[in-house]
């Protein structure tokens, strides 16, 4: 089922066209990797989908126009995980996760309804953060903080998750943890869109890879097609090693071209 359909999407920031004429249709249950060089417009595309920047063109979510939805309705449909996992005050991890229920009317983490509390518990179990639920954000390591941020996003239980570089600045083990959690979430029927610079992770975990270059969508499809030798050379200006390991595809950027 098509969950998100985008037609002729354009975004201009400070008079500069950052995204031009992007059209795509993405189905629920898919993990989509959004890749491209720095400045290609990946984050802007995520933010446009979340309704955080004004855009031209149309965005349909479950058949409804994004522009016709209230902020709260948008928040229920798109769970957005920005880069950096900022928490300005040292809140308890559990309270941070509970903020994911805010779009559903849960304004006080200490007084959650049964269904909200269950959603929070599920999210915390899926990301394995239950053991430090009472710790404050300042008392968490980088890896722990990123898992709490991911739990907050899962707790929304939205049909679409938008994650901006969720694996950046994590060690390899935590990168795999995060991608596996997102993969599992997609398998449960959620459309997960992940911005990443790690083509290896994209190739291994994503059903669909979208390649953005200079604000345009230049390639999309399964990893081996979307990240063809031609695209790797033209867009990323690198060659790549391609192989297979334990029956999963491997792409490793290798040399400048």
């Amino acid at each position, binding site marked *: 089922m098509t969950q998100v359909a985008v037609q002729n999407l354009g975004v201009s920031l400070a008079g500069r066209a950052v995204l031009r004429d992007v059209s795509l249709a993405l189905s629920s249950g898919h993990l989509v990797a959004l890749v491209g060089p720095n400045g290609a417009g990946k984050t802007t595309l995520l*933010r446009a989908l*979340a*309704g*955080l920047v004004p855009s031209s063109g149309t965005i349909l979510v479950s058949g409804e126009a994004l522009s016709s939805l209230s*902020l*709260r309705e*948008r*928040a*229920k449909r*798109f*769970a*957005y995980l*920005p880069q950096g996992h*900022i*928490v*300005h*005050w*040292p*809140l*308890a991890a*559990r*309270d*941070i996760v509970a*903020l*994911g229920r*805010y*779009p559903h009317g849960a*304004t*006080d*983490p*200490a007084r959650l309804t049964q269904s909200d*509390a269950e959603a929070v*518990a599920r999210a*915390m*179990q899926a990301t394995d953060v*239950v*053991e430090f*639920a*009472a710790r*404050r954000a300042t008392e968490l390591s980088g890896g722990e903080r990123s898992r709490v941020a991911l739990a*907050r996003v899962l707790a*929304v239980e939205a049909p679409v998750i938008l994650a901006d570089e969720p694996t950046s600045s994590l060690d390899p083990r935590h990168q795999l943890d995060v991608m596996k959690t997102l993969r599992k979430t997609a398998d449960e029927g959620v459309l997960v869109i992940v911005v990443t610079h790690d083509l290896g992770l994209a190739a291994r975990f994503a059903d669909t890879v979208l390649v953005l270059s200079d604000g345009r969508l230049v390639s999309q499809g399964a990893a081996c097609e979307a990240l063809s030798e031609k695209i790797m050379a033209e867009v990323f200006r690198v060659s790549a090693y391609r192989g297979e390991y334990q029956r999963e595809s491997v792409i490793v950027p290798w040399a400048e071209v």
Partner: protein
Amino acid sequence: MSIASVMATADIAARRRAGVMAALVLLVVLLLLVSLGIGAVRLSPLTVIDALVGEGSDVAQVIVREIRLPRTILGFAIGAILGLSGAALQGLLRNPLASPSLFGAPQSAALGAVLVIALGLADVRSYALPVAAIAMAFASVFVLLAIAGRNAGLLILILAGLAISSLAGAATALVMNLSKNPFIVLEITFWLLGSLEDRSFRHVMLALPFIAAGAIVLLSQRSAFRVLSLGEETAQSLGVDIGRLRLLVIIGVALGVGGAVAVTGTIGFIGLVAPHLMRPLIGHDPTRLLLPSALTGAALLLAADIAVRIIPSTSDIKVGVLTSIIGVPFFLYLIVRERRALGGGVA
């Protein structure tokens, strides 16, 4: 650790907060009674309660109900709105050094009121005074947030606040400079120092509606401050209308600070200090800090106003002077404590 034990730790925290709130309420009630009892004639708390309910001597009733009650009500309400405004601004800007007085809001409100007095537009007991003060307070906070932009660092905020309060101070000085009537200048000078002395129910009526409206506006937005802990963009993605929130906080702070300044002059630093006193007890959750900060603000101003009546001195010490004398060193202490966090921006 199981989900149940997670909930249990949350319950312990909730009980602790309830205990702190109960203690604060008790403290404020106590200070209210002392404030009604202290002055040229000292009355015991029991005499005060008798007088309040219409019993005891006529003299005591007049002293308590007509002289000290307005002053005490204003002390409570203004302290509370200053504490609440400070907590709300700190929540909005995710910054522990935000406060109305550092942003020039009271100074600007004072300028509005001084203009009305000096130009002889209205007498000091008319509603023109709070309206002018609120308008100027609104303008100052609005300009400050406009300068600061969406993700302002502390440095920009403090510098912009310094500029705005200096400008308001300079404009106030200009008004006094140009004034031909020396009595007005003297009156304005003393009024600017900030005092609760000799206030009547007329003053209460002048300020209270605006203060109450400001408090309602700020409290109506309470849950958004917690979401804002995750940054503006994430808060927006969770359904918080950031533009509307900013505007409402500016309106709430302007109504409260403007209304307060119009009847008492500038009383600074309560908005900065109150949330800090509560963080070790309540935690850092900006939503949960709002009410305790309001009560702490009320307690601070009531205590300061009691202190100026007790401290022996040849002339009256103004309560605004006292709060600044205590507040500014506290601000310096905060700067030292936050120095490491500020490192990149300031040092």
